[in-house]
C-alpha cells in the first residue's frame, strides 16, 4: 500500500469512527432491526424519507422507586431483613457488582423511604453513592443530596424527589456516556431486588388473597422488555451472564397465563384523566409461584453475595 492509499484509509477509518460516534452512542436506543443498503440520496426529500424509516427504541423497566411503590400499594409490610445490608458495600469491587448493587441499594432506599424508615435513609443513600462513585458516575449523588435528605428526613415528598433525581443522574450519565450495558445492569439490579422483596413478602397461607401476588404476576409483562434491554448489549461478558440468569426466570414467567381483553379508553371528568378499561384473567399456580420465588432468590443472592 503506498503512502497516498494509507492516508486515504486513515481518513476513511476516522470518518467511519466519527459517524459511529455521532449515531451509535445514544442512550437506550438501538439501530433499526434490519440493516439497509447505504445509498447517498440525491435530494433532501429522499433524506427525509430515510429519516421516516429510522426508529429509536426505548425499553423502560419499572424504576426502583416504582417497584417499591407497587409493593406499598399492595398493602405489604416493611421488613428490614429483606434489604441488602449496607455493611456489604465494601465487597463490591467489580463494575458489574457495583452496577447491580447501585440498583439494589436504590430499590432498598426507595422501599425504606416509602415506609418512612428514616434511620435507614442516610446509610442506604451513602451505600448507593459509594456504588455510583465506584462506577465513575460524576455528580450522581452529591453531598448536597445527602444534606437535603437529612434536613427533610420526615418529608416523604422531598425524599422521593431526592431518590428519583439521584437515580436519574446515574442512568442518564451512563446512557449519555456510552455505557448502555452498565445502565441496563443497574436497572436489572433494581428490578430483581423489587421482585425479590415482593416474593419474600408473600406467605403461602395468603396466596389466594394477597394483592402482592397480582403485582408479581404483572412483572411477566416486563420480562420481555428486560430481555430486549439486555440483548442490545449482547456480547458484553457480564451482560451475557445476566441473559442466562434472566432466561431461567423467563422460563418460569412463561408458565403464568395472562389473558387480556380489548382495552377501552374512557375519559373520567372527575379526575381529568383517561381510564384504560379492560378485563384481564391471570393464572399462576402456587407451585409456579414457589419456583419463581426460588429462582428470583438465587439470582438476587448472586448479585449481593
Amino acid at each position, binding site marked *: 500500500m503506498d503512502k497516498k492509499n494509507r492516508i486515504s484509509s486513515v481518513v476513511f477509518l476516522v470518518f467511519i469512527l466519527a459517524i459511529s460516534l455521532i449515531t451509535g452512542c445514544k442512550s437506550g436506543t438501538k439501530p433499526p432491526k434490519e440493516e439497509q443498503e447505504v445509498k447517498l440520496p440525491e435530494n433532501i426529500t429522499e433524506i427525509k424519507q430515510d429519516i421516516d424509516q429510522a426508529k429509536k427504541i426505548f425499553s423502560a423497566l419499572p424504576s426502583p422507586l416504582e417497584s417499591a411503590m407497587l409493593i406499598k400499594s399492595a398493602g405489604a409490610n416493611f421488613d428490614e431483613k429483606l434489604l441488602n445490608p449496607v455493611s456489604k458495600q465494601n465487597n463490591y469491587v467489580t463494575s458489574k457488582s457495583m452496577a447491580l448493587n447501585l440498583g439494589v441499594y436504590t430499590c432498598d432506599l426507595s422501599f425504606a423511604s416509602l415506609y418512612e424508615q428514616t434511620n435507614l435513609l442516610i446509610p442506604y443513600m451513602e451505600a448507593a453513592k459509594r456504588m455510583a462513585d465506584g462506577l465513575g458516575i460524576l455528580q450522581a449523588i452529591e453531598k448536597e443530596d445527602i444534606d437535603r435528605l437529612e434536613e427533610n428526613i420526615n418529608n416523604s415528598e422531598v425524599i422521593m424527589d431526592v431518590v428519583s433525581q439521584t437515580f436519574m443522574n446515574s442512568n442518564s450519565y451512563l446512557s449519555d456516556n456510552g455505557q448502555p450495558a452498565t445502565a441496563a445492569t443497574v436497572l436489572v439490579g433494581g428490578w430483581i431486588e423489587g421482585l425479590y422483596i415482593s416474593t419474600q413478602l408473600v406467605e403461602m397461607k395468603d396466596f389466594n388473597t394477597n394483592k402482592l401476588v397480582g403485582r408479581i404476576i404483572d412483572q411477566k409483562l416486563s420480562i420481555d422488555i428486560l430481555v430486549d434491554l439486555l440483548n442490545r448489549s449482547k456480547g458484553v461478558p457480564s451482560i451475557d451472564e445476566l441473559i442466562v440468569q434472566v432466561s431461567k426466570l423467563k422460563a418460569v414467567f412463561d408458565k403464568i397465563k395472562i389473558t387480556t381483553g380489548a382495552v377501552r379508553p374512557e375519559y373520567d371528568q372527575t379526575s381529568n384523566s383517561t381510564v*384504560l378499561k*379492560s378485563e384481564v384473567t391471570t393464572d399462576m399456580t402456587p407451585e409456579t409461584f414457589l419456583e419463581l420465588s426460588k429462582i428470583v432468590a438465587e439470582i438476587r443472592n448472586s448479585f449481593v453475595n
Partner: protein
Amino acid sequence: MRLIKTIPVIAILVFAFSGSIDAQCKAFAKKECLPELQPYTHDGNYHAAVLVEGEEAELYKTFYSDMEYRVSIVGESKLPAIEFKVLDINKNVLYSNKDKDFASTWDFKLQASQQLKIVVKVSSFNKPGDTPASGCVAIMFGFKMKK
C-alpha cells in the same frame, strides 16, 4: 503529514461535540420535561434522544393498575410539533395528542396492568429543500398511588 495530524483533532472534536449534545439533552429534559410531571412523582427513569424532523421513536413500558400516571413528552422549541400516540399490544391507538392540539402531557390510569407502546414522532415543517430541523426530545413518566 499535516492531514494525519489534523485527523485525531477532528475525531476528538466530534467525540466532544456528541457528548455535549447528550449533556444538553439531559439539561433540557430536567428543565423542560421534568416540571411538567408535577404533582406526580417522577419515576427516576430518563429517556431522551436527539431526533430529526420526521423521525420516530418508540418506547415500551408496563403500567400498573394500582397507579395513576402522567406521561410528559417535550421537544426543543426549534423542532416542529411533537406527535405521540399510545397503543396497546394489539396496536390499537388508545390516545393521540394530535386530537388534543399536540398536548405535551397525558394523564391516565388502568383497570388492569398493561404493557403499552408509545410512538413519538417529530412532525415536519413541510419546507422542501430546507435542512431538516433536529433537537432533543425527552420522554418522562410520573406516578402516584391510585386514590
